[in-house]
């Protein structure tokens, strides 16, 4: 126990930790000083940012009547890509599985994502590393990512896809490429990526054969010609400049825009990138919807929002603000069993704790999901994982329907900003919905204060 007085009897002041040099910050400095390398990790932004938690639905009242739960219909289906594609994607629920690579994830984990998504009536997405047979085989609707690295990219797989997603950026790292470290490069991963085993694999930050919106338009034309104008083409952008990025993607001919906020995960990138580049998911949705509305394309070109979506409440809020669907990545991994407390002792041995484990790039995942280690992979059962994901997707859907019915909506798409209020000034400004108890939000037109 500390002495309360010094040896002359003068009281000590209470020891005071710095709000600037916190324990977290100091541990970062010590780690940097010991290694000389920046910290690389998986996941999305962990800092607290304004989020959907700062919004509330008002529910029904005298002026709005609700729908009866379990009795009156509340539809959840969504069609994506009907603008240019002859075979648009028809989903039963507006919650899709985001792109995650084979390489970052094990083959069985990709299979489980396909199984769960298919049972729930939604789509899953490939990632940086190409399409695996188990993923294609277990996914009723599979979106094929077209990435700067073009690892595993080939026209045969392209033609097997139900949609193509041109990846320009991702919320965790707008403007950044990827890095799959050598320890995860098994023979199979190396073979699919046409690189030697065991070396670090850089994924480029921009496409090798186009730059800018005019080129993108030609790239989309090429992909449509190769696939006979059958499948939708999405463009995925990070939450960087959502109004202009959405505008330019539509101008280039996209069928859908996938918009990923900074809480969206990555397999591996610099911590400084994840925490300091990009915008929160809450902040990007209204500018993107505004761009769609300004071009007369809202509900014609679909907006798929991702980045920290966790619950049916998040789904409902995203859709009320104008999104057509959402995508989940990190939440899907947790549903599969990532960061499960049952492996706490093993997380502790890795210097972390369940819930905080984010060194996915090291390939030592106790849950056997973000690994290529054959022994660790055995811990994960893709059938059970698929069942868990299906359950989770069903719960999210039921939750979103519960809210929509309470707001008197017979389709999730009928949720609207007028159903929402904000708990904070920041959220009110970002979502353009009134601060609770007021008729005002910062920046509201024709209001002066």
């Amino acid at each position: 126990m500390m002495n309360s007085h010094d040896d002359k009897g003068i009281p000590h002041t209470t020891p005071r930790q710095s709000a600037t040099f916190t324990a977290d910050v100091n541990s970062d400095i010590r780690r940097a000083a010991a290694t000389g390398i920046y910290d690389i990790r998986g996941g999305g932004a962990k800092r607290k940012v304004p989020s959907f938690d700062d919004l509330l639905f008002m529910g029904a009242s005298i002026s709005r009547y609700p729908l009866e739960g379990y009795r009156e219909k509340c539809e959840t289906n969504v069609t994506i890509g009907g603008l240019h594609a002859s075979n648009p994607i028809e989903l039963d629920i507006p919650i899709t599985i985001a792109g995650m690579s084979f390489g970052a994830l094990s083959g069985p984990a990709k299979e489980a994502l396909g199984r769960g998504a298919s049972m729930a009536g939604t789509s899953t997405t490939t990632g940086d590393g190409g399409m695996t047979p188990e993923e294609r085989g277990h996914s009723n609707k599979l979106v094929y990512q077209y990435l700067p690295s073009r690892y595993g990219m080939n026209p045969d797989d392209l033609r097997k896809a139900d949609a193509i997603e041109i990846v320009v950026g991702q919320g965790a790292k707008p403007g950044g490429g990827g890095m799959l470290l050598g320890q995860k490069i098994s023979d199979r991963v190396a073979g699919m990526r046409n690189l030697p085993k065991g070396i670090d694999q850089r994924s480029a930050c921009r496409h090798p054969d186009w730059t800018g919106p005019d080129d993108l338009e030609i790239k989309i034309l090429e992909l449509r010609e190769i696939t006979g104008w059958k499948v939708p083409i999405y463009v995925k952008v990070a939450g960087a400049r959502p109004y202009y990025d959405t505008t330019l993607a539509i101008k280039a001919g996209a069928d859908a825009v996938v918009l990923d906020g900074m809480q969206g995960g990555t397999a591996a990138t610099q911590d400084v990138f994840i925490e300091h580049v990009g915008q929160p998911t809450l902040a990007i949705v209204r500018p993107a919807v505004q761009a769609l509305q300004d071009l007369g394309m809202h509900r014609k070109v679909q907006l798929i929002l991702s980045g920290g979506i966790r619950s049916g409440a998040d789904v409902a809020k995203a859709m009320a603000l104008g999104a057509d669907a959402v995508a989940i990545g990190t939440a899907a991994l947790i549903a599969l069993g990532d960061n499960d407390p049952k492996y706490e002792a093993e997380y502790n041995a890795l210097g972390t704790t369940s819930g905080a484990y984010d060194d996915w790039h090291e390939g030592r995942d106790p849950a056997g999901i973000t690994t290529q280690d054959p022994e660790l992979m055995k811990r994960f059962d893709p059938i059970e994982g698929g069942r868990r994901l299906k359950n989770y997707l069903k719960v999210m859907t039921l939750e979103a329907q519960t809210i929509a019915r309470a707001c008197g909506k017979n389709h999730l798409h009928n949720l609207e900003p007028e159903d929402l209020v904000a708990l904070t000034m920041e959220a009110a400004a970002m979502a353009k919905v009134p601060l609770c108890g007021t008729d005002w939000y910062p920046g509201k037109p024709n209001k002066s204060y």
Partner: protein
Amino acid sequence: MQSFDLEAQGLRALNSVLHDQAANTNQTVWEINNPKGSHAIAVGLDAPIEVNVKGSTGYYCGGMNKQATIHVHGSAGPGTGENMMSGKIVIEGDASQYLGATAHGGLIVVKGNASSRCGISMKGVNIVVQGNIGHMSAFMGQSGNLVVCGDAGDALGDSCYEARFFVRGSVKSLGADCEKKEMRAEHLEFLKEIIAESGVDAKPEEFTRYGSARTLYNFDVDNAGAY
């Protein structure tokens, strides 16, 4: 020979009819007139047919080609032969930037010059250029061969993996982790074969080989200044 007027019949009709050709098609030779720099000509082909484009092409001619031989009787725009898997593309004139980007296989021959980023991120294709190539060529090249009968611009083979580069003329500068390599018998033999197949005018012993020094294969902070 089948003749197709691109200006009159349109791009969708062209690619559609070329995609419809089966492996055993009798219509093996096609002539495309009035290309006029159009984009995405003869993309995604997957049959052993010969397509002669009578003029210059825009972006991505022959993109993702499999099996087909595409002959451009003019110059070719950016990204020609991007992600090609197999087959052959011959360009009588010059090629713009990103020639053969990420291509996995087959052969691309340029009778003139190729611009910057020729063979960027190449994954197994062979590219032969009679003239010169521009800067940042074969950036992050993974595998395959780039044969240049003229000179190479700045930063050849920057951050390359296992792709090989053979240059007959000068190299303005080498990119990060790219170095001069010895010519062994196997390389001379490879050059002899590919020169014959490409129909370019050169002798194997006139070339110098370049490739990855492999010092950046696994991240090391002491190499950070190299990037």
